């Protein structure tokens, strides 16, 4: 039976159908979840998609973090449920305390959409298992508030514990230490600013490099079952 991966839709989620498409392309079943529900429907992992939840009129992710479904996700994530937050999803993960730090306005103050080179730094998270550390990939980045910030201690800690998942090659937004993505202590929750779900087919994206995030989780879940 293939893995079941939930994709949550918040009001203002925009890349939710893309995330679901990528989940399917990675070999899992996509289960659509609604922000106002609380039942995770027994999914094996969850994707928080990109977009502008609630318009992102306050701080990105600040309102979505309080959605009923996020309550369920936060509890389950603490118990080991793998969660991938992409862009707005990354912001929601930081706001809800599942990941440290915060994302602020890009240093050049513009929204930026471009094909971005990224270096995978940690290949031992639930979502990057099929990568090799040091591998360079190209996936789209598109955000207005993608500048990762945290205090020095946190940054040092992330680095020391190899919890920086990916770094920009050519920083697009002023993220500290070129951070494009990070993971939690148990390496199950990953937040990433650029969009792997928009790089699953060279027809509609710059590459198919992003697909590996979605095959990785299938690999990880299969290993769990096997273990």
């Amino acid at each position, binding site marked *: 039976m293939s893995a079941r991966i939930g994709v949550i839709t918040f009001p203002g989620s925009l890349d939710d159908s893309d995330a679901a498409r990528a989940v399917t392309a990675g070999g899992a079943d996509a289960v659509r979840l609604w922000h106002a529900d609380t039942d995770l429907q027994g999914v094996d992992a969850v994707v928080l998609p990109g977009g502008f939840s*609630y*318009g992102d*009129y*306050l701080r990105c992710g600040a*309102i979505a973090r*309080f959605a009923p479904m996020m309550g369920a996700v936060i509890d389950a994530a603490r118990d080991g449920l793998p969660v991938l937050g992409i862009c707005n999803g990354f912001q929601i993960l930081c706001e809800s305390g599942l990941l440290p730090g915060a994302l602020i306005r890009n240093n050049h103050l513009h929204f930026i959409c471009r094909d971005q080179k990224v270096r995978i730094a940690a290949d031992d998270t639930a979502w990057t298992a099929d990568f090799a550390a040091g591998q360079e990939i190209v996936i789209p980045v598109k955000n207005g508030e993608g500048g990762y910030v945290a205090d020095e201690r946190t940054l040092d800690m992330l680095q020391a514990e190899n919890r920086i998942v990916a770094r920009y090659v050519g920083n697009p937004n002023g993220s500290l230490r070129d951070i494009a993505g990070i993971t939690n202590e148990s390496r199950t929750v990953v937040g990433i600013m650029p969009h792997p779900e928009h790089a699953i087919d060279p027809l509609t994206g710059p590459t198919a490099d992003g697909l590996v995030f979605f095959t990785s989780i299938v690999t990880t879940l299969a290993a769990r079952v096997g273990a």
Partner: protein
Amino acid sequence: MARIVVTVMLKPEILDPQGTAVRGALTRLGLTGVADVRQGKRFVIDLEGSLDADREALLTKLAGELLANPVIEDYSLQVEA
């Protein structure tokens, strides 16, 4: 050292989607009787030396040209120190 605080708010008759979003969230999180929320900007400007009349005049002018768009926003200046 002088500190000037410029406050910029959308005019009352202008739609404020940000304030509306905050109002909705506060209400959902249990705060009762929220009649209205408006969201604005606040600029804290530190100037070297003291604030002479020339600089104050220029700053007042720039507040209405650069920091606020008077077509949709009201603004006010406050000298703090």
